[in-house]
């Protein structure tokens, strides 16, 4: 099997493994968070502008640039970040990494890159799914929450958004996916052999992954707002 084929097969395996796991979790979370976003926006906009027609476009913009990538990727940190860290830790402690090195198999192309590329692609896809789920969820309840008809809500939905908002969200998803998977592999590969170490590594991977996402979100938000506006 050539290197390129082997990489593609490993990549597809990882995409399936982590993507299918995350699909239902992210979709379920999107349904709940969409409702909360509309409720909170309605509270604030009612107070500040006394005009609820501004709520759908504000909420859509916030979902595309912030909540879509942020929540989907945070969920993926606990799903696949912890799994990658513990898998790497177990491989390291049972000397499977050393065995691969002895066989002259590149760890980067056999183990590290397939996971990082898969997590990056999955985060982009799940960000898109989360955005769609949240928007559908808040549109579905807006007649009760805002007293506006579905036609009116759908009509004003993208009034404050542009394609750049969607691109911002997807870029954030890609950055988040790349960073948490890299952190998980790095932490998992640290030396340590006991069962307590495996648990600690998974915990560290989750915590540092989430923290990295929060910091990156701040920096990327600032950069993108100045870049696109």
């Amino acid at each position: 099997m050539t290197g390129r084929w082997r990489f593609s097969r490993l990549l597809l395996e990882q995409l399936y493994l982590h993507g299918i796991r995350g699909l239902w979790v992210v979709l379920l979370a999107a349904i709940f968070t969409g409702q909360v976003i509309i409720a909170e926006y309605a509270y604030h906009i009612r107070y500040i502008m006394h005009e609820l027609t501004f709520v759908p476009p504000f909420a859509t913009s916030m979902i595309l640039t912030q909540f879509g990538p942020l929540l989907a990727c945070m969920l993926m940190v606990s799903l696949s970040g912890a799994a990658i860290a513990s898998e790497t830790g177990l491989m390291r402690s049972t000397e499977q990494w050393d065995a691969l090195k002895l066989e002259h198999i590149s760890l980067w192309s056999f183990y590290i890159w397939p996971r990082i590329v898969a997590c990056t692609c999955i985060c982009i896809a799940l960000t898109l799914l989360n955005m769609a789920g949240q928007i559908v969820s808040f549109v579905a309840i807006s007649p009760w929450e805002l007293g506006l008809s579905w036609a009116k809500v759908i009509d004003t939905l993208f009034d404050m958004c542009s394609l750049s908002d969607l691109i911002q969200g997807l870029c954030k998803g890609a950055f988040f996916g790349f960073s948490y998977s890299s952190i998980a592999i790095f932490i998992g590969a640290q030396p340590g052999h006991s069962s307590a170490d495996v648990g600690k590594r998974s915990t560290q991977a989750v915590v540092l992954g989430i923290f990295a996402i929060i910091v990156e979100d701040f920096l990327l938000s600032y950069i993108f707002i100045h870049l696109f506006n």
Partner: protein
Amino acid sequence: MINLRQETIQLKTFTLELASRLFRPHTQHWNMIIIGTLRMIRTCLVMVILSSLFVGGILVVVFQHHISFFRADSILGAFASSALLREVGPLLVGFLLSGQCGAYVASEIATMKATDQLDTLSSLGLSDMDLVIVPRFVSIFMATTFSLMLSLAGGIVGAYLVAASLYDMSIYFFFSKFQWLIQWSSLWSGFYKCFAFGSAIAFISCYTSYTAEKSVQGVSTAVQKTAIRNMMALIILDTFTTHTFRGLMFVLKYFGVLS
């Protein structure tokens, strides 16, 4: 189907046992609870403060962009702080704490189980529930609730620092619309969420690790399960607490308790 049935029975047994022991006077365990709480707060303090500063910063950067459409910069501080108190602060920092405190304790208890330490306690005639689970449950609950409340204050400080450094906003200008937009109910809503999230993280972490498999694989599975269950619980609870708090406010206003 069998797994679901087993899980339901395990959950019921654990909940009843925890509830029955939680409200018994365990005066001899107070030192364990206090030490555990302080240790957990110390573990997560730096991360909580740093992440809450950044969460406040994110809200200011994003809301400044939105508010600039309406030239209403004076409400930026109050708008960002209100969103932080009511919603975003407890949720995002709760995610971090579900990993920091929840998964940390889950890995500790699951490791004790994998290395037969819990069985040793039982063979000595001691209750693992009394000595390990209940003190940790109370410790996580107190540590996460305290940390979440601290994160609310940290978030407002972070929001002000970003507003001052990036948008040249004075402290007076930042806080000028606080009294107008932020009501006591916003603060109580935040505290209510902190309390609910703290309870959920404590319960899920203890339950998942106590019912983990006795193996190295079991430890890592318990940590992963704890992290994802905690996050899903926080998201579902977030919706639940938002709606129940709104209902409560409506009832209180209806009966004239609140104006």
